[in-house]
């Protein structure tokens, strides 16, 4: 059943409305003996009703992005758009069930409030400005390099090699994939020498 139609005053031509009325008219079916409670009353909408999942062209297994129980979900996609997310009946953890947060994953991902452009705020400015992704990446790389070069400590006064900068930190993320955390530790720590690298594990 799709979203209940908002109030639309029907100005369809009179003929169309009479035609619809006659098509769904129960009286003749009642006279033909159909019970008024069920068959005689069934409308064309009910006759042709199907669940929208039948139109999905790909069904992928995703894992609920909320807590660590690790419920498996089935994400239904039609023409490259997400149309529904539901529990995966094959998972030995949740067997198709989901808690309220997991059940709301579709509304999380398809949330109209979500950002889609990079926003940037200049020092002391009172508003956001929209910026191209490429511009932001270049500027962040420059800032990282400048801060690192100005604060990098190669060796301590007592000669111990430390190879770190205390001036750049990174928080995140227990919500990220293992591959993402792997690259963060590899690039930020092993590459750039950051030591302030943490995530929600201690929060």
């Amino acid at each position, binding site marked *: 059943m799709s979203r209940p139609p908002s*109030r639309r*005053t*029907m100005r369809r031509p009179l003929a169309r*409305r009479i035609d619809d*009325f006659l098509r*769904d*008219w*129960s*009286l003749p079916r*009642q006279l033909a003996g159909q019970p*008024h409670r069920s068959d*005689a*009353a069934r409308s064309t909408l009910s006759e042709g009703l199907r669940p929208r999942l039948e139109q999905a062209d790909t069904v992928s297994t995703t894992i609920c992005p909320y807590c660590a129980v690790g419920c498996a979900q089935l994400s239904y996609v039609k023409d490259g758009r997400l149309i529904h997310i539901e529990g995966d009946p094959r998972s030995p953890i949740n067997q198709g069930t989901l808690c309220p947060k997991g059940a709301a994953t579709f509304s999380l991902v398809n949330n109209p409030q979500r950002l889609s452009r990079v926003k940037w705020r200049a020092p002391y400015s009172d508003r956001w400005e929209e910026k191209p992704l490429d511009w932001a990446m270049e500027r962040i790389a420059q800032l990282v390099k400048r801060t690192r070069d100005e604060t990098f400590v190669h060796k301590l006064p007592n000669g111990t090699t430390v190879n770190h900068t205390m001036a750049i930190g990174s928080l995140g993320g227990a919500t990220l994939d293992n591959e993402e955390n792997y690259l963060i530790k590899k690039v930020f720590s092993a590459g750039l020498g950051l030591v302030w690298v943490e995530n929600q594990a201690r929060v």
Partner: protein
Amino acid sequence: MNAVPSTPVANPTGPWRGETYYGVPPVRRSHWNWKVGTYIGLGGMAGAAQVVALLARGRDRHGALRRQAHWLGSVASGIGAVLLVVDLKTPHRFANMLRIVRPTSPMSLGTWILSGFGLASAVGTVAELLGARRLGRAAQVPAAIGGAGMSVYTAALLSATSTPLWAAEPRVMGARFGSAAFAAGAAALSLGARRRGEDATADRLDEVALLAAGVGLVASGLAEGRAVAAGVRRPALEWATSLGAVGLAEALPVAGYAAAALAPGARRELSLAASLTLVLGNIVMRNEIVRAGNASADRPRDTFRLTQPREGRRRTR
């Protein structure tokens, strides 16, 4: 809903001791308001008018009563239909009312009754306008049958709900609506007769109205009493409006007609006043019944008292 009554502890196996779920009503009130109330009043009056007119055929040599009844039937049906369509939340689908005949739905039956009654009255009215007396007289029979339906189906309409006040006593509700409609019908015709100077007929109609209003008064008293017995508890203000409406629709007219009968000098004026009060009072009383019913649906304990298991209290079958 700030200071919400916390749920008193229920003994799982014991009787109900007034527990509610934070005061949230267990049933839902209808969205009906003055439109439906007025329709019930008008429909009942016009329906009964056709019945009375048919009964008075003997003395209605010139068909004045008949014409008036047909006019009343057509106008009331027209206004009623418009009121009902406007009351629909999706009015442009009003025709779906005639999509099916559902014997379990008073509204479905009512729609067909209203259609039949309206049609018969309209045919009668046109016949009268064209002077086709025989057709006018013939139309009176279906109109009267439809009229009887119009004056009582609305009782079933309200009784066949879960609203405590309406569902408390279906039989008394039926008698109350039947008698109130009958009185209003007779009163309406009496007004017409008086205006046309047919005082004798008007006197007889007054007597019918007096009788019907009297029966109605008794039925109303019984209905209000039985509702309390069934568990409907109304705050003081609501008591006042309900009894006031009954007073206006039935008590006052009864007194008026009685006075008219006892004081021949002021007979015309008293009769006109009584009939007018009855006709308008009838509509006011119907609206009050609708309003008080909706209010009872908002009181959880009314519903719970009404729905205690049978051995808890006496109920119809």
